[in-house]
């Protein structure tokens, strides 16, 4: 029996999304095959990792990742420049977590100022995220989108409860938009439809099917991503052809494997390497499932993921 490679071709293609402006603008998506299947079709852009920064010091991050940013994380501008200039980040994600009513409850004006200052300080693409408080995010993200007009940012996250105003603001100010739903392919598709029905360009959307950490439900995110990508490619479903986001850092650095000291958990080995690998491995699994954009925290985890991407393309 002679072997013929069972290659496949697909009807659909992932949209190409560019973020940022000028020389440092970055492009993701555009592939017409399953992740890293360059043996059977085009994969024009490699996935992109954005380093996460916050509007307030990361007091709630575990020691092993917090300490990496000691001396810069007290000021979002310093932090952003450090990521761009010293860590050579290709993009950053500014999370305005301090605006959450149960956190520092920073005002919309404060959030706008932070976003403007960060945008003025760096030339790499910026993802601007709210605090995941549906109501407050509406006010914060609308104002921030306006302040960042024409910077071609990625604004997020629009959810079922608040997508209308956020999508309208992203549209009016020429930004890309993250649409997030909770671990369900149908919800994800439905939200994309609702947003595009408002007149939002389907090619300016990024899908976030919701991340989960290695060991804590990663398989759900993994399979939802695989299914979305298969629907995009095999069924040519235009409502599911957006590039996908894995918001890895905030999920990973919550679980006990990224925090427990080796003294408490000797069977888990060195805590520092364990935390870095937990983040990098979550990210790698999601890349294999179809994520094109990742938001991560530990620079060593990012470096490791970049090196595996290098081997995969």
């Amino acid at each position, binding site marked *: 029996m002679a072997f013929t490679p069972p290659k496949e071709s697909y009807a659909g293609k992932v949209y190409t999304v560019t973020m940022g402006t000028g020389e440092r603008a970055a492009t993701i998506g555009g592939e017409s095959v399953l992740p890293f299947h360059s043996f059977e079709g085009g994969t024009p852009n490699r996935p992109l990792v954005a380093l996460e920064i916050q509007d307030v010091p990361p007091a709630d991050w575990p020691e092993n990742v917090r300490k990496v940013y000691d001396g810069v994380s007290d000021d979002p501008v310093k932090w952003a420049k450090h990521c761009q200039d010293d860590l050579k980040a290709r993009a950053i994600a500014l999370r305005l977590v301090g605006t959450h009513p149960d956190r520092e409850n920073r005002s919309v004006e404060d959030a706008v100022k932070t976003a403007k200052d960060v945008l003025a300080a760096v030339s790499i693409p910026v993802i601007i995220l709210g605090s995941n408080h549906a109501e407050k995010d509406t006010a914060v993200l609308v104002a921030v989108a306006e302040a960042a007009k024409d910077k071609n940012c990625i604004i997020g996250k629009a959810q079922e409860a608040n997508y209308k105003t956020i999508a309208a603001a992203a549209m009016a100010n020429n930004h890309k938009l993250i649409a997030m739903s909770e671990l369900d392919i149908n919800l994800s598709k439905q939200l994309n439809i609702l947003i595009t029905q408002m007149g939002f360009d389907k090619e300016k959307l990024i899908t976030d099917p919701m991340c989960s950490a*290695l060991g804590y439900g990663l398989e759900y995110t993994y399979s939802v991503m695989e299914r979305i990508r298969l629907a995009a490619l095999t069924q040519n479903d235009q409502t599911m052809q957006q590039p996908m986001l894995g918001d890895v850092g905030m999920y990973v650095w919550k679980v006990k494997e990224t925090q427990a000291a080796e003294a408490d958990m000797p069977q888990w*080995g060195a805590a520092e390497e364990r935390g870095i*690998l937990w983040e990098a491995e979550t990210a790698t699994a999601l890349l294999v499932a179809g994520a094109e954009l990742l938001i991560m925290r530990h620079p060593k985890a990012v470096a490791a993921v970049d090196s595996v991407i290098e081997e995969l393309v």
Partner: protein
Amino acid sequence: MALSGVEIFKLLPKTNCKKCGHPTCLAFAMKLAQRQATLDLCPDVSEEAKKKLGEASAPPIRPITLGAGDKAVKMGEETVLFRHDKKFVNPCAFAIEVKDTQSEADIESVCAQVMHSEIDRVGQKLRIDAIVITNESGDAGKLETAAKTVAAKAAGVAVIINTTNAQAAEAAVKLFAGSHPVVYGANASNLDAMASVAKAHKAILGIAASGLEELSELTEKAKGLGVEDIVMDSGARKAKEIIEHNTLIRRAAIKKGFKPLGYPVINFIQRGDSMHEALVASVCVAKYSSIVVLSSIEKWKSVALFALRQNIYTDPQVPMQVEQKIYKIGEPKADSPFFITTNFSLTYFIVSGEIENSKVPCRLAVMDSEGLSVLTAWAAGKFTATKIAQFINDSGIDQEVSAKELIIPGYVAILSGAIEEKLPGWKITVGPREANAIPAFLKARG
């Protein structure tokens, strides 16, 4: 390739005698097609039909057991390309390489690491499954010495002997009689000799090819020589090639019924940088590897790889909800802390994990919220004061606890007053918002 129910029916006696326990031959044929019955239930089936059906019903990827005893690893038997279609069947084995150029002490220390690699995760015992002994020296005596060390210091662990020298392989494999090792290194120039070693010692033959075409030729030849159990190395080493080869192999076996590639895959991915190696291993776990060969197994690395393997090989059909009830964690007493949360399985796993972590025995009430997380359930009106109160009242838990204190998730602090009103005699305490703060919360309560 798999036969349809109707095709199978044509091969059955068509007497509808019911001896197989099915009302008709057709009903039995349908069960056979779905692999929910086996042919031996029909006493009247012809020899010819048996042969045809036997070939057709063989799983697309041959089931093979690596090693023996309680540490044996099952491989193969996979039926799908994507885990959402159906559960991936046999989790891949992790193997660590030792070389016969290493000192005896070094090899012993790797064996000790393997023997102590077992950890318990969500009720499963996970460990490094196998040791590869590589004939780096090219010297048969050195390989045998290294193999002796492994046999003595890692007794019971599955072994993969890695050499292209059939005589060296023979000397080493003898040490693992009856324990189903792999003899890896068969290629175009030594296939006959390696195949007879594998056959003589009931070992699995590891074929080392360069490319998929050569690989299928070699497995066909090996089969012709009477070898049944094979593991395949296509020669892929880079992550990109591993995805390509492993995907094409899995597709050929499952979608095309291409028998020459219907065997488990072994991937050698040793790298200088351990973190990088772990990530390449992650690609192998997700993409169809049956044996992943590593160069180091630090504990921080193993625990992460075990977790990924568990995630990928979880049954996707299991719903994301857990049963509504009051779970006991540890052995709670009448006055132990009593938490409530929703029945989204991730919420449950994380909260119960953190309570376990705190080592404080507790009760955890898991309320049916249609599988939504706390915040979403609250927003959707499925985790409200009225519903919580009703659940607690109906549970009869007040007979069991003395304290009558209920700890609610910090995210729904807003509900505490309303629940207190609806649950007279109960004290409502606001717990942490995130589960990871539970151990500190419990510690602070003393």
